[in-house]
């Protein structure tokens, strides 16, 4: 059976498998947003553009981090939400991208686009090298292996002193230059706009990917892998493709991190980063890209803003957020109003003294 070109029946089967699981509009319909969607998207864009004009420096820095984290969360969601491979290892590729971007900036080029290309290339290569191990497993075993990959990358970053300067971190990274002849970005507002532009581009690219036949196949992989395999898809190759794309996306986020912070240390790719990225996806709603971005916002806001107000106990608040999200919002923020209604009903019932199951 031909494996490169799926037979027409195969496409049919994918569509069937997907429709059963997700009551949403066909992702392959031509992109014709309705009025409400356009208004919401427009409002969000205006709000994002207005941030440096309205908010102070610290808030702009926080929003820059949120945007970067949203890109990382999209990477996690591509694997976890779309393809059904729960990952705790994306911080590794984030770190690879961050270090690759930083080394490029220091030794080679201050141009943002060059740094991004090198970082994404490094992330893709790293994912190609490690992915084949991870995608042999599914489910929790996949989660465990990616966690191990992440932790190993983290300790490697601390150990390879010659390249990464160990736990001291890489400093002295020159400001990122957007176009040849321009000056480096030092102003926090400009850096924000740079990150915003790249993040929106990444979002659009992922949206296009999800509407492509590849995106549909990845959903099919999540919903019914054995069926896909039975109709002749080499599912392993598709899982690896998802893994490599997600690795590149995480590395892109890493490169943005370098450009905005101008400092990289192993801590930036630690377990907590991976855990927070997964949390962002779960809080936002597994499988929804805008949910992942929203989740990233909630997570970073909790850690950096509320955490600071609560005298540095960010992790404590995050832990509570994890627990609450799991119990109260099974479908995440993107899960729609129905579960909120259900939550209110249950609260009212328990307030009225009825036994809650």
């Amino acid at each position, binding site marked *: 059976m031909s494996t490169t070109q799926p037979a027409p029946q195969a496409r049919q089967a994918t569509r069937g498998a997907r429709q059963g699981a997700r009551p949403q509009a066909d992702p392959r319909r031509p992109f014709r947003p309705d009025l409400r969607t356009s208004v919401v998207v427009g409002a969000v864009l205006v709000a994002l553009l207005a941030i440096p004009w309205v908010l102070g420096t610290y808030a702009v820095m926080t929003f820059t981090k949120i945007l970067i984290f949203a890109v990382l969360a999209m990477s996690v969601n591509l694997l976890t939400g779309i393809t059904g491979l729960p990952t705790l290892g994306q911080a590794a590729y984030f770190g690879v991208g961050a270090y690759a971007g930083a080394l490029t900036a220091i030794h080679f080029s201050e141009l943002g686009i060059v740094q991004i290309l090198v970082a994404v290339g490094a992330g893709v290569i790293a994912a190609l090298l490690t992915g084949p*191990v991870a995608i042999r*497993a599914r489910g929790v*075993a996949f989660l465990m292996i990616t966690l191990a990959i992440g932790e190993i990358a983290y300790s490697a970053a601390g*150990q390879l002193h010659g390249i990464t300067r160990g736990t001291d971190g890489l400093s002295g990274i020159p400001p990122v230059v957007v176009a040849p002849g321009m000056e480096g970005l030092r102003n926090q507002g400009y850096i924000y706009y740079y990150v915003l532009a790249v993040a929106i581009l990444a979002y659009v690219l992922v949206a296009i990917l999800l509407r492509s036949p590849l995106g549909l196949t990845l959903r099919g992989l999540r919903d019914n892998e054995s069926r896909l395999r039975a109709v002749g898809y080499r599912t392993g190759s598709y899982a690896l493709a998802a893994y490599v794309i997600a690795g590149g996306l995480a590395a892109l986020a890493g490169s943005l991190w370098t450009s905005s912070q101008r400092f990289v240390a192993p801590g930036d790719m630690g377990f907590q980063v991976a855990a927070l990225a997964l949390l962002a996806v*779960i809080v936002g709603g597994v499988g929804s890209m805008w949910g992942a971005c929203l989740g990233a916002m909630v997570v970073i806001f909790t850690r950096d803003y509320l955490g600071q107000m609560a005298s540095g106990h960010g992790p404590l608040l995050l832990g509570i957020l*994890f*627990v609450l*999200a799991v119990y109260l919002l*099974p479908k995440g923020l993107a899960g729609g109003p129905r579960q909120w209604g259900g939550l209110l009903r249950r609260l009212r019932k328990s307030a009225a003294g009825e036994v809650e199951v």
Partner: protein
Amino acid sequence: MIDGVAFGLLLFTLAVGLSLVFGMMDVLNLAHGTLYLAGAYTAYALSDGSWLGLLIAIVVGLLVGVLGGGLLAAAVAPLQGRGHLDQAALTLGISFIVAEIFLMVFSAETLSAAPPAALAGSITVLGYTYPLYRLVFIGVAGVLAALVYLAFERSSVGALVRATVADRDMVRAMGVDTRKILFGVFAFGAALATLGGVLGAPILAPGPHVDQRVLVLSLVVVVIGGLGSVRGALLGALLIGQVQTLGVALLPTYAPFLLFGAMLFVLAVRPQGLFATGKTA
């Protein structure tokens, strides 16, 4: 070598709990490293270098483990049928909270717990000097490993537990309350982890991020050994103990890659781990 064996047996006491809880209850417990940390801090707080101190620490540590395991099992229970992702998020959240509380109570430093004074010295065997505590630890943990193995593979309770793994409904139909068994396994696994913490505190000292290191090492062991298998956990732990210790001693720069290489090798040969039980994730 001896260090590797000691570290490997320490990993076994940790990993076997994780492996069983997942193999039996189908629960992914990412707060497992936190249980080790709880035990290690208990040892730090109670163990004062005397035998009595160690004994008290062990008893308290076991209590902490049973209690912690029971609480975790109760916390995860409402998530039945919701998939592993939610379990992962919940247990991660709990581990974040508890780690932060430890941080507040015990400060952010890496603390050293004192082994009993009688075991603090070192002895010379065949021209090499070994810390006495590690040798004793190997003995104790070896006995522990043997007991766990016998309890699961040879006793009637172990048979019941294994039956529950194989076919929960059938065991329930025979009039056994499977929920009690599952709770028991969770508490048992957790108690092993805290006990590992109490005994292992002089080897792997309590401090921030130790819970994550322990969790990752246990996960690697479980991945290599196969989920839900006592034998697999033992073999995987000894293997990883050697790789880690020799790697750090001989090729410190590449030690993390050696760990990954070992995992890669085993998975390439047997994707389901060395001794997988019927259940695969």
